[in-house]
């Protein structure tokens, strides 16, 4: 295959581009970042939520769509304090993930540890892999 670059760029330039998003989560527009891992009998959704209290997250599952909603609330600083650095973004968030297989909604569970939200969505019986024996 013939490859052509219209705008020749140095290797450093190319590197620069992805370093921006890799190093500074600040520049990333989607919040929270999520992972979705599929296992044989369940799907695990992981979300990075530093500084978010578990009571400030609301998880719903409706019409096969999982939605995380919440808010990173500001922390208290003393009245006479002087702010020297402010990179953290306090904001509301909402993300939805649609599932294309059946989920056993009654058994969805979630826990929050060290700023990571982990949601386990067991697959519905109909969505599980079955091995059929040939007689």
């Amino acid at each position, binding site marked *: 295959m013939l490859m052509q670059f219209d705008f020749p760029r140095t290797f450093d330039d190319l590197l620069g581009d992805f370093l921006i998003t890799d190093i*500074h989560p600040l520049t990333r527009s989607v919040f929270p970042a999520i992972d979705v891992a*599929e296992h044989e009998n369940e799907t695990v959704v992981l979300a990075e939520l*530093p500084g978010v209290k578990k009571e400030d997250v609301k998880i719903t599952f409706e019409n096969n769509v999982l939605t995380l909603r919440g808010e990173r609330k500001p922390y208290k*600083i003393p009245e006479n304090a002087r702010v020297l650095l402010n990179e953290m973004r306090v904001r509301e968030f909402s993300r939805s993930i649609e599932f294309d297989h059946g989920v056993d909604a009654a058994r969805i569970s979630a826990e929050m540890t060290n700023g990571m939200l982990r949601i386990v969505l067991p697959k519905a019986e109909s969505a599980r892999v079955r091995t059929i024996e040939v007689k």
Partner: protein
Amino acid sequence: MENAKHDALMRRPDGLAEKVVVPVADMFETSDEFVLRLDMPGATKEAIHLNIEPDRLSVHGTVMPHHQENANLLFNEISRKKYLREFNLGDGIDRETIKAQYDDGVLTILLPKTEAMKVRTIPIH
């Protein structure tokens, strides 16, 4: 920065290799101390280390893999990473009484000022 570049280069195409990430930080100063907060989700208290050098404070954190090695990831926005950030330490900080706490994925470091640096209000008689 050099480390980060190196790690980015070593990244495997599947996105599973470890990267060095500079954690986002907030800092404020009161009359008695500096308070530094860093977003380090996914680390654990045991896997965070603070090194206090004569003129520098460095924060390191390790995040254990979140998934089994052969997991089928349909979405993968959370990278495997190590956290690293360094700050200059001025003379006015009492190195002996620095304290740190890790809650909800946020590391809070309290850097008390030395007696000489503390702000005092002098009443006029």
